[in-house]
């Protein structure tokens, strides 16, 4: 949109400059004591701690790899169940009015309640085991899936439906061969949101009630006043989230390359 266009090389150069300035200033600020060392660790320390934590279980009780797998497994379980239930539900709700009218009120009551708000009640009923956490993640991931799948069906181009009708297709056939494929971009948008929600809620759940996982790790970092551990955890959480989103994107390109404009 702009009148100025930068060449690829220049952009890459500026990227590097930006990163160097940011990390350099950060490192210097901590080294020279400009920013207090008790509350912030320099990038070099963070890197050190990360490498150390790959094998060292002290001081928080486990290696970062184990923490990662605990978190990843939990998030994925909740996510997969949510997607498996949410997408079909949303698709059917979008197409069959009876189901829509029946489910929507329940949905509209549940939807505005943030997933995190479910944590206390779930813990009271299900304890602090894996089941509780998976359920909370399920609630967080379920809602966006349903909504987006529902919208995806609702937004099916009426002209396509009409064309199918002129071919003599039944309601079910139209649903299967027109509405569902047409809704895939929105379904994927919902899955993408769900993924982010799963991961974020998992971290919250682990911070509130857990003995392992990345969320637990950063809480421990706070208790032990080890900002380097906290930052290592934060960056790992962020990086994993970004990686999963990228993986999803690649899957979407394979399954539904006709993505609608975001």
């Amino acid at each position: 949109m702009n009148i100025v266009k930068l060449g690829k090389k220049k952009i890459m150069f500026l990227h590097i400059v930006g990163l160097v300035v940011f990390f350099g200033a950060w490192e210097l600020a901590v080294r020279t004591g400009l920013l207090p060392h008790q509350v912030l660790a320099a990038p070099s320390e963070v890197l050190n701690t990360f490498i150390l934590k790959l094998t060292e279980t002290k001081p928080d009780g486990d290696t970062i790899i184990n923490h990662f797998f605990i978190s990843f497994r939990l998030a994925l379980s909740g996510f997969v169940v949510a997607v498996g239930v949410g997408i079909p539900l949303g698709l059917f709700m979008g197409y069959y009015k009876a189901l829509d009218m029946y489910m929507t009120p329940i949905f509209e009551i549940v939807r505005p309640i943030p997933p995190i708000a479910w944590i206390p009640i779930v813990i009271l009923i299900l304890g602090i085991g894996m089941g509780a956490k998976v359920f909370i993640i399920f609630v967080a991931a379920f809602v966006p899936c349903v909504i987006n799948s529902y919208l995806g069906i609702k937004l099916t181009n009426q002209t396509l439906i009409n064309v199918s009708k002129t071919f003599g297709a039944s309601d079910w056939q139209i649903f299967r061969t027109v509405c569902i494929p047409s809704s895939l971009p929105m379904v994927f948008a919902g899955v993408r949101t769900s993924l982010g929600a799963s991961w974020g809620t998992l971290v919250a759940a682990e911070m509130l009630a857990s003995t392992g996982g990345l969320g637990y790790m950063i809480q421990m970092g706070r208790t032990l006043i080890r900002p380097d551990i906290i930052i290592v955890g934060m960056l790992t959480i962020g990086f994993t989230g970004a990686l999963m989103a990228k993986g999803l994107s690649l899957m979407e390109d394979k399954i539904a390359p006709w993505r609608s404009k975001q």
Partner: protein
Amino acid sequence: MKQSTKNRLYLLLPILSVLTLLAVFTLLSSQEGTLIPTPIEIWKRFWDMMTIQISKATLPVHVWVSLKRVLTAFVAAILLGVSLGVFLGWSPTFNALVSPVFEILRPIPPIAWIPLVILWFGIGEMSKIFIVFIGSFVPIVINTHSGMNSIDPLLINAGLVLGANRSQLLVDVALPATVPAILAGIKTALSGGWMCVLAAEMIVAKQGVGFLIVRGQEMGDMSQIVVCMLVIGIVNVLMSTCLTKLEGVLCPWQFKKAK
């Protein structure tokens, strides 16, 4: 079946589903030794909490405390977020410099910032406000940036031939064209911010709705928890509705119909 009969039956369904929900609830809560409160208990508890103080404040006060934190952080998030988003969209140089850092920080869930922020600011107001700020700032920047990038080039051309210089192009063309996207970002940011204040309050607070819910959990008081959950949901809906109304006022050109 006639369409009109069908339509009338359709209208029955929502009523049916709410009744089913209440029925299931009542059934579960009347079982021996269950913790689940009956709908009536919840109703009574709600009115209790409206007048009786928990931790030196009634329910409305707690809600207001939470809201205040959200709104304070929100104002800062809008001012800084829109500015950053506009700059990222307008200056390719600035974008190239700043995006990598933003892209590293962006995927970190705001909740994951809580331990670090507590380390920085202690357990006072600032911690909670800062978390909400992070949670709102990011969607606003992303939406504003995206809005700037999606401006119809035709409008830019029109601005150019009408004689706009670079700053006029930004202020008189680009910014108004981006307002719908900014508002969309603000909507996302508001419910995101509300979630963040909850999380922050659940971990470290002495007042606020998040605190109330955790208090209920500590006391094993299910009714309190359920009341809080419902109140949180209602506030969420109210905020969304207000924002949608605001959208209608600020961007009338998106909604008025052609004659």
